[in-house]
């Protein structure tokens, strides 16, 4: 199982029946593949649908039905079309139960940076700032470090996405919960030790006495 699958399978456990969930493009979108059959949720695509379904079969694409990455999708029974005002009204008004987003950096305050690297291409924040500022729960799903450099850091050096403490960080090595007191190591990834996590993390971590192993779906 590769790092991304570990992360997606762990994040999938956070998704509960009746939630409205927004999955970012890339790694976060993999979470949908690992939901238990008895979990009945609606996925939102912020470009305008609640009740996102799987990819349509070849030749059955609808040019007016795509996800926020621009890929063709389907809609499940009971889906709703919404315009951008309603879509972001849901996100900003606290109606979105959970967003799962990738991360470039998360810091000891629990603040996330995931939308730009100064000096590189400027893609724009799209809906990321709204999602992090507005969702009830913000889950950062990312590989623990980037080319050997820690991504969980004392203080973000990249521009923040929002000055809001995210709810949970899930990597292939650990589940870390940002709290008022700091970053708490909650679970260890398959085969990972506390020392492995510490070595790959430049932020201070609060280490409880008991740290269970990550359970994956």
């Amino acid at each position, binding site marked *: 199982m590769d790092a991304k699958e570990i992360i997606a399978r762990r994040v999938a456990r956070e998704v509960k029946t009746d939630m409205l969930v927004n999955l970012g493009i890339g790694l976060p979108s993999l979470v949908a593949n690992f939901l238990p059959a008895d979990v009945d949720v609606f996925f939102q695509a912020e470009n305008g649908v609640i009740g996102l379904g799987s990819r349509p079969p070849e030749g059955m694409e609808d040019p007016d039905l795509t996800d926020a990455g621009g890929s063709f999708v389907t809609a499940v029974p*009971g889906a709703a079309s919404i315009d951008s005002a309603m879509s972001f009204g849901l996100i900003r008004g606290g109606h979105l139960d959970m967003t799962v987003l990738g991360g470039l950096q998360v810091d000891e305050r629990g603040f996330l940076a995931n939308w730009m690297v100064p000096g590189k291409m400027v893609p724009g924040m799209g809906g990321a700032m709204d999602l992090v500022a507005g969702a009830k729960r913000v889950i950062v799903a990312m590989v623990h470090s980037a080319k050997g450099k820690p991504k969980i850091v004392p203080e973000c050096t990249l521009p923040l996405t929002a000055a809001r403490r995210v709810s949970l960080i899930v990597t292939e090595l650990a589940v870390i919960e940002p709290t008022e007191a700091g970053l708490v190591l909650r679970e260890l990834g398959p085969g990972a030790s506390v020392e492995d996590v510490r070595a790959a993390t430049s932020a201070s971590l609060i280490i409880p006495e008991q740290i269970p192993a990550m359970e994956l779906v």
Partner: protein
Amino acid sequence: MKTAKKADEAAALIPEGSVLLIGGFMGVGSPHRLIDALVARGVGGFTVVANDTAMPGCGIGKLVTAGLVTKLIASHIGLNPETQAKLIAGEIEVELVPQGTLVERIRAGGVGLGGVLTATGLGTPVEDGKQVMEIDGKRFLLEKPIRGDFALIAAKSADYKGNLEYSLTAHNFNPIMAMAADTVIAEPHSILPVGAIPPDAVKTPGVLVDHLLEREH
């Protein structure tokens, strides 16, 4: 999925003293069965936010007559002499709000905005005690968001995911109120199977609705 509740079961969910957003315009588009159940139950002390109190014996007027309303935030009470009488007798506190400001304040509460900046009410008694801001040379009143503990709304039809459609002038405040309360109870004329409402016809996505009243008999 939502299970459809009887009106008295739904009414029983609402504690004394709750803030209720109630849809309707002169009784059109009000949740009449739910109101009847509240009157039958007799628990009150409610703050009611609604466009109006209709007339005695009609819609929200029944809650006023039954003495269940302690405070009222509305745009118009002129057609209900009982509301007037209770206001004069000091039995009910009334905050009058311009209709467009009222709906925007509720929307702001629902979509997470910090307030509404409007020209409506400037130079009138509505301005009293409120902050006036000058933005690019124009003056605007700062009006605060409104949220409810419960939204009690009426709809033309629902499905068992809670998706709602509305009818003609029975839309009024209902779609906006559905966004602005901790718990949303919807009273549809009919309930359809999931999938029977086309995505483009949904005006309130089911994720906003917590409880459905059973269909009319």
